[in-house]
């Protein structure tokens, strides 16, 4: 087989055709995802953030994080449902301010911290809630599949599989919510999708 024959063969293999309805609906599917992340208040002609808005954004972020910490996280011992609702609210508010930039929100005894990417390039997916406890000290992460978190200096890649299980893959250990008891790490780990 020469190069021309190979080229002709490759060109003769089309990618599978989809129905017309798929192509008609695809642009709307994308823009629906865009508006979901930006929230219902997103204006179709919203101006981009200017430098003057940076101060406002920063202030709003601080207010959200401080409000969350003192208003909820330190306000007694909430139930799991209350805690989840508070984390969902926190994530929604932060994601509205920084669409596609939130890599993780870390919440521990020191309060909530935000990890943002410089560019809005964090792929859209359902946020995941990862809770890691050692003795009585716990750290919660709201993050996404494909992002990295650090625990005691070790980096773990957070992955979600098609069945909704969460996997933490580190250099020395792997944990999966499908088999949580099989962890070799000296921590207690819980992880699940944070449904919005």
């Amino acid at each position, binding site marked *: *087989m020469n*190069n021309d*024959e*190979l*080229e002709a*063969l*490759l*060109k*003769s*293999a*089309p*990618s*599978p055709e*989809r129905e017309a309805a798929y*192509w008609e609906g*695809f*642009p*709307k*599917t*994308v*823009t629906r*995802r*865009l*508006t979901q992340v930006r929230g219902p208040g*997103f*204006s*179709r*002609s*919203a*101006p*981009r953030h200017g430098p003057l808005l940076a101060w406002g954004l920063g202030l709003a972020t601080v207010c959200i994080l401080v409000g969350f910490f003192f208003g909820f996280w330190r306000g007694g011992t909430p139930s799991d449902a209350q805690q989840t609702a508070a984390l969902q609210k926190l994530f929604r508010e932060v994601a509205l301010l920084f*669409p*596609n930039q939130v890599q993780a929100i870390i919440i521990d005894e020191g309060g909530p911290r935000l990890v943002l990417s410089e*560019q*809005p*390039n964090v*792929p*859209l997916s359902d946020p995941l809630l990862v809770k890691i406890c050692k003795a009585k000290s716990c750290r919660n992460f709201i993050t996404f*599949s*494909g992002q990295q978190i650090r625990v005691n200096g070790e980096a773990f*890649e957070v*992955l979600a*599989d098609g069945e909704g299980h969460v*996997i933490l*893959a580190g250099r020395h250990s*792997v944990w*999966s919510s499908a088999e949580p008891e099989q962890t070799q790490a000296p921590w207690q780990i819980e992880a699940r999708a944070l449904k919005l």
Partner: protein
Amino acid sequence: MVVPDEEAGWIARSQQGDLEAFERLIARYQRMIHALTYRMTGSLDDAEDLAQDTFIQAFHALEGFRAEARFSSWLYRIAVNLCLNWRRRVQQREQIHQDLAAQKASIDPPSDERTARVQEALLKLNPKQRAAVVLTTCDGLSHAETARILGCSETTVSWRLFAARAKLKRLLNDLGSGRGGKA
């Protein structure tokens, strides 16, 4: 037929956050991006997810788009990078689960057997070689344009194509020159 001025208008309006204009751009390029993501993944579902992610990432990055590059090349670049990252994640997942059977099951074979063989052979290439083949041979881009999209030199593109062709010829030899065309 879309005239460049019209496309430039859609881009400018999308840069201002106009989603209707962005939908026009998506409609214009959706087939091109789906074809690329399918050839890179071999999975219709993953191709769809990656195509959606490509346009979403493009929308957020549109502010930085300058008309120095063609819009299609700029989109290709985003899509290829997403596909290469997708490969890394799948490989990591495979390593963790040691479950290659599940990965094979997620591949959507085309109905035509000859096409299926070609797609299967493409998936056996190293992802960067595959990207070079898909962009140059399947999508007809020049080596220079492919090099810009892949962020490497033209020499690297040529070398990847050389290596990819050698492997593809081995894998698809019985389909060439009309021999066993039906495979």
